[in-house]
């Protein structure tokens, strides 16, 4: 599946177009990557800040429920922006990403991180103060927060290591 998808993408007009854009729009690769990093910063200031708040280490004077409602929409927009800037590179060179194990690790961190963020957001939206109602929920929220932070860190580290896969194989030797 992975192979046929990579081949289909490589042969597609979308790929040709992405290659053309990246090669002919002056400064597009670093511009798109910088916007991608700014998206990471927005995730840090929204989803990750909520996680740090749930763990009781950041923003003591702010309210958990209000924070989730105010900050999480910023996460969704940042993820959308990062999906677009990221896709530009993936579509241009599918083989570079589809056959890269580090790219796989990035998504093994990203998908659960997003799902946990959605869970925090949805339940809080359904019931204000959901995560503070009982000891059980408070503990659950802390566990979710701790796991999420580890996952988000994994996303960023793996993201940067996509370009350095050969170093990992060097380490294995």
């Amino acid at each position: 599946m992975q192979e046929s998808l990579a081949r289909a993408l490589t042969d597609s007009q979308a790929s040709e177009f992405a290659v053309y854009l990246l090669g002919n729009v002056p400064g597009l690769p670093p511009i798109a990557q910088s916007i991608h990093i700014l998206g990471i910063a927005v995730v840090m200031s929204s989803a990750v800040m909520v996680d740090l708040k749930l763990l009781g280490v950041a923003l003591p004077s702010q309210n958990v429920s209000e924070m989730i409602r105010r900050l999480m929409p910023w996460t969704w927009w940042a993820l959308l922006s990062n999906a677009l800037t990221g896709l530009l590179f993936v579509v241009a060179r599918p083989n570079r990403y589809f056959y890269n194990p580090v790219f796989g690790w990035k998504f093994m961190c990203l998908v659960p991180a997003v799902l946990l963020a959605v869970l925090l957001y949805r339940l809080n939206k359904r019931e204000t103060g959901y995560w503070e109602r009982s000891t059980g929920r408070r503990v659950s929220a802390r566990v979710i927060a701790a796991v999420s932070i580890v996952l988000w860190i994994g996303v960023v580290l793996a993201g940067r290591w996509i370009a350095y896969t050969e170093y990992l194989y060097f380490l294995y030797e």
Partner: protein
Amino acid sequence: MPFAEFWTWLQALPLSEYIGFTWWFPFLESIHVLAVGLVVGSILMVDLRLLGVTALDYPASRVTRELVPWTWGAVLVAIVTGTGLFMTRASVYIENPAFQIKLLCLVLAGANMAWFQFRTFRDVESWDTATVTPRAARIAGVTSLLMWAGVVFAGRWVGHSI
């Protein structure tokens, strides 16, 4: 380039060569990106409060005091990891225009932060809960946003120009 011998000496250090030729370079670089994300993310929240865009339920002084320590902590990590990256090819980086612009943006962001802290923030009591923040606070917020975005763009450009 001033201090030419110093930059050459720095990049010839065993530590510099070790970082440059091993997995330490990508390792430090990935931590650097993480730290930069937290720097920009935390200061972004302060800037948006200073601009009167969001978090208006909370006094500006509280938002600032609770977030700026995160910014400084992350700046420290970014400086340590950034120095590790820089020293591998110091004499090349120091002459790179993108790197020079990044340093300039950093200095301006720092100066803006200091000006805000020691001038604008001193009479914060008078506008702490106001939904429309004073002009000086808004200028500090915009300047900060632009300079930190400049740091990210110029920083990413360094990797494409060396």
